[in-house]
């Protein structure tokens, strides 16, 4: 779908439109000092105008890049819009990125201005200032702790706003004039992909890209301006940008910024979003909490929960899809809604959800079905930063746990012989910034984008993604090995937080496992197993036994699938520390970097295949304040039972 002539084609123009059409409706809320503070579209228009005039006065010009760093705060959203109004290009950063990780982007995009949330971010920028000589101004939102800073580069957001307000009064036409100069093909935003190897690449996305993607979703889901959306994911992630910025601007609904990362659950309950977006890890964390809380519940409640969840698993998803269900089970499900599903959805803040999406990585089928069986219309979609998250989405009534649905309107998808998925769509990015060779590698001359994902279409025309094309390997016996598939199966158990599977070029599959310290800690307390910390808990023989049971369940499951039977996990290690993005083991979006982990923990991998039952590992850890320390541990290697394909079939 292309943006039609005459339709509003840039985000700042959309802002003006909303201010005119629904000026008195709230556009954005933020919980502050325990109260939901809100700004209407008109108020927001004014804020953006002042900010834009202030930025223009400070020297931000058309085509310049400006860094936006922090969690979801209205002022940071306004910064994005104000920069776009001037034709400048906002570059959002992950707020938990280390200072040195930011240096490359600042240099690459020649960034001179930054708007940051607080002291933490300001400190990072001051630290890298000597390496980034172009950076000349840092505006901060929250002045806390910055009172005594004397660096002249640091200026309060408040001052920028006041200066802009004065400038806007002096030049009342400036804002509208600058907006009118913008066209849809201008660059709207640049997002750096986390990249599993090498430097991050700046993905250049135009207003047309994002607006057409936003419109496609709005049309598909019939989004209205009454939708409530919780803006809680990292701003530097395309998913967050599409759902809480592009679609927000296209449709004119409301976004709500939680008070802090720790209060997201409570804030979500208060808001009751109608349109919700969550990567699988968030849904997983919620389910883990539910499971733990149910174990604390009384006997009667546990029985009720188990009975009705069994029922829901059988009929819930079918009811949601409008498929026939026996009258008796319908009645029982209704009862379950009153007794279990309703209260549970209320506790999760999901009562009002009309449409929910999950994306970012593959979701475990059981996890997916759990939410759908409660009557929550959770669907999967497929996309990436480069495609403005506009490739495939599951339409209502055709939702399957293991596919991502058929291609969206206007998107062409092909699967190459190598299994790689290639596509063309209106949301497709213009280029990688300053990196022609990477652009050429990703986009062929006819405009086909190579996603790097492997998959195939099933017989109903739904796309099924199995893994990254480069990660799909073969066991030395020649059978297919999709590590992600195994990892996801392991991670569905509440006790397992992260897993890394190995097997390419090896005779059999093995895995490293991270326990979920909350769930396993709770499990241990119930059994009176004392432990001092993460490493101690992970090394308890009872915990290893618990993990073994999970691994064996996965193996039993795999043995039922003729393609995957050979991928059963023969041996595993329970790791002594949590895999962490700060140590480079996960990407900032928390995907495991399998190759890096394989090298870093080569001694463990060797032990997994050598038959040894113990191994010693020394690992560097980076503390939150940036210091580096070493952890040395002796780990046990355990074997797990595997199943023959015939044994179960018989």
């Amino acid at each position, binding site marked *: 779908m292309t943006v039609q002539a005459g339709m509003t084609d840039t985000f700042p123009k959309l802002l003006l439109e909303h201010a005119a059409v629904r000026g008195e409706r709230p556009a954005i809320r933020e919980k502050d000092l325990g109260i939901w503070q809100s700004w209407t579209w008109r108020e927001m228009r004014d804020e953006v105008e002042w900010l834009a005039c202030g930025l223009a006065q400070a020297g931000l010009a058309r085509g310049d890049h400006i860094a936006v760093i922090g969690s979801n705060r209205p002022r940071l959203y306004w910064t994005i819009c104000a920069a776009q109004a001037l034709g400048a290009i906002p570059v959002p950063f992950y707020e938990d990125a280390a200072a040195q990780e930011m240096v490359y982007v600042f240099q690459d995009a020649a960034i001179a201005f930054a708007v940051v949330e607080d002291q933490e971010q300001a400190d990072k920028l001051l630290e890298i200032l000597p390496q980034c000589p172009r950076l000349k101004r840092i505006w901060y939102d929250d002045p806390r702790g910055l009172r005594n800073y*004397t660096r002249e580069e640091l200026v309060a957001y408040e001052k920028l706003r006041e200066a802009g307000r004065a400038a806007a009064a002096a030049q009342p036409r400036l804002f509208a004039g600058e907006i009118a100069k913008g066209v849809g093909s201008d660059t709207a935003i640049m997002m750096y992909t986390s990249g599993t190897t090498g430097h991050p690449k700046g993905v250049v996305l135009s207003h047309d890209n994002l607006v057409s993607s936003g419109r496609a979703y709005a049309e598909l889901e019939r989004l209205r301006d009454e939708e409530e959306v919780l803006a809680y994911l990292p701003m530097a992630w395309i998913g967050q940008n599409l759902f809480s910025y592009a679609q927000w601007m296209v449709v004119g609904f409301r976004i709500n910024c939680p008070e802090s990362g720790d209060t997201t659950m409570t804030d979500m309950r208060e808001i009751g979003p109608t349109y919700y977006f969550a990567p699988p890890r968030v849904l997983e964390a919620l389910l883990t909490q539910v499971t733990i809380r149910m174990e604390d519940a009384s006997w009667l409640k546990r029985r009720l929960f188990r009975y009705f969840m069994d029922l829901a698993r059988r009929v819930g998803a079918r009811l949601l899809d409008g498929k026939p269900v026996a009258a008796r089970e319908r009645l029982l499900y209704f009862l379950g809604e009153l007794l279990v599903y309703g209260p549970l959805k209320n506790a999760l803040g999901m009562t009002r959800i009309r449409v929910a999406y999950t994306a970012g990585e593959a979701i475990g089928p059981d996890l997916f079905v759990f939410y759908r069986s409660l009557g929550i219309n959770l669907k999967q979609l497929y996309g990436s930063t480069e495609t403005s998250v506009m490739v495939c989405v599951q339409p209502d009534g055709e939702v399957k746990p293991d596919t991502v649905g058929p291609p969206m309107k206007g998107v062409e998808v092909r699967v190459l012989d190598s299994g790689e998925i290639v596509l063309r769509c209106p949301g497709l990015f213009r280029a990688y910034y300053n990196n022609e060779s990477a652009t050429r590698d990703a986009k062929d001359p006819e405009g086909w984008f190579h996603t790097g994902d492997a998959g195939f279409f099933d017989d109903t025309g739904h796309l099924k993604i199995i893994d990254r094309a480069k990660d799909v390997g073969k066991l030395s016996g020649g059978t297919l090995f999709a590590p992600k598939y195994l990892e996801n199966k392991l991670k569905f158990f509440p006790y397992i937080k992260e897993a890394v599977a190995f097997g390419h070029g090896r005779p059999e599959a093995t895995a490293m496992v991270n326990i979920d310290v909350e769930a396993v800690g709770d499990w241990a307390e119930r059994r009176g197993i004392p432990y001092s910390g993460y490493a101690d808990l992970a090394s308890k023989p009872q915990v290893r036994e618990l993990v073994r049971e999970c691994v064996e369940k996965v193996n039993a499951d795999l043995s039922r699938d003729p393609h995957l039977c050979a991928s059963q996990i023969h041996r595993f290690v329970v790791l002594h520390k949590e895999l962490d993005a700060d140590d480079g083991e996960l990407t900032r979006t928390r995907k495991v970097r399998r190759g890096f982990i394989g090298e870093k923990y080569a001694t463990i991998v060797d032990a997994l295949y050598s038959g040894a039952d113990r191994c010693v590992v020394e690992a560097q850890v980076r503390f939150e304040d940036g210091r580096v320390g070493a952890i040395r541990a002796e780990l046990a290697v355990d074997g797990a039972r595997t199943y023959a394909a015939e044994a179960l079939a018989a």
Partner: protein
Amino acid sequence: MNLRELEPGTVQRKVGEAVLAVEGVSLAFGGVKALTDVSFDVREHEIRAIIGPNGAGKSSMLNVINGVYRPQQGRITFMGETHDRMEPHVAASRGIARTFQGLALFKGMSVLDNILAGRNLMMRRNLLWQALRVGPALREEIEHRKRVEEIIDFLEIQHVRKTPVGRLPYGLQKRVDLGRALAAEPRVLLLDEPMAGMNVEEKQDMSRFILDVNDEFGTTIVLIEHDMGVVMDLSDRVVVLDYGRKIADGTPDEVRSSQAVIDAYLGVKH
């Protein structure tokens, strides 16, 4: 290394005149001498530490300052007024607040209510007005609630706002205790071992909060602490007590190199 020096671009705060001074304070419980002729002063906006081995009289000193103990000798001067002995209610109403080693919180009440309790002295309307929650009492309550929310925001405990304090981990309870003391908007804040029983990360957090309180609110802070590293990082000046006597007084560097202090901590051959 002083924590302040780690931050790029900060300046030393303006430390003013002495706001609090103790002169020649001696305190004995029966025959046991807890403090003997101790004198020192605390300047406005500074962070002043009192250190010393176990039983040196540190907590007794704090208790003398806020009037829980009555010294047999000596005087306490607070904001120009000299007292032979401080009374607890006078200390509290003049702007001295404190936290306690063993925490002084209402375990069954929420974090919010605990901190609100810290504003008790500032509530103008009587119990009846407050119970009715009308007119001026309501306006006043809203104002108090706002201040409490600012403290909650400041100490980053929004996620436990409505949780009963007794259910919180120890490190967070310590933070709530600090919040309760801050709610009184004190001029001088006495902290009795604010980091006792904490892990490294919790100690770092607490150090950060103490520095921020000092910076943002300009609160003068007197603290007792066992962790030498923390004391040397945080404080502007340090008093060292040993067996109830002052054996050193000065900047962290001066105190660190004082022979008397080294002897008191490591022991000497007699």
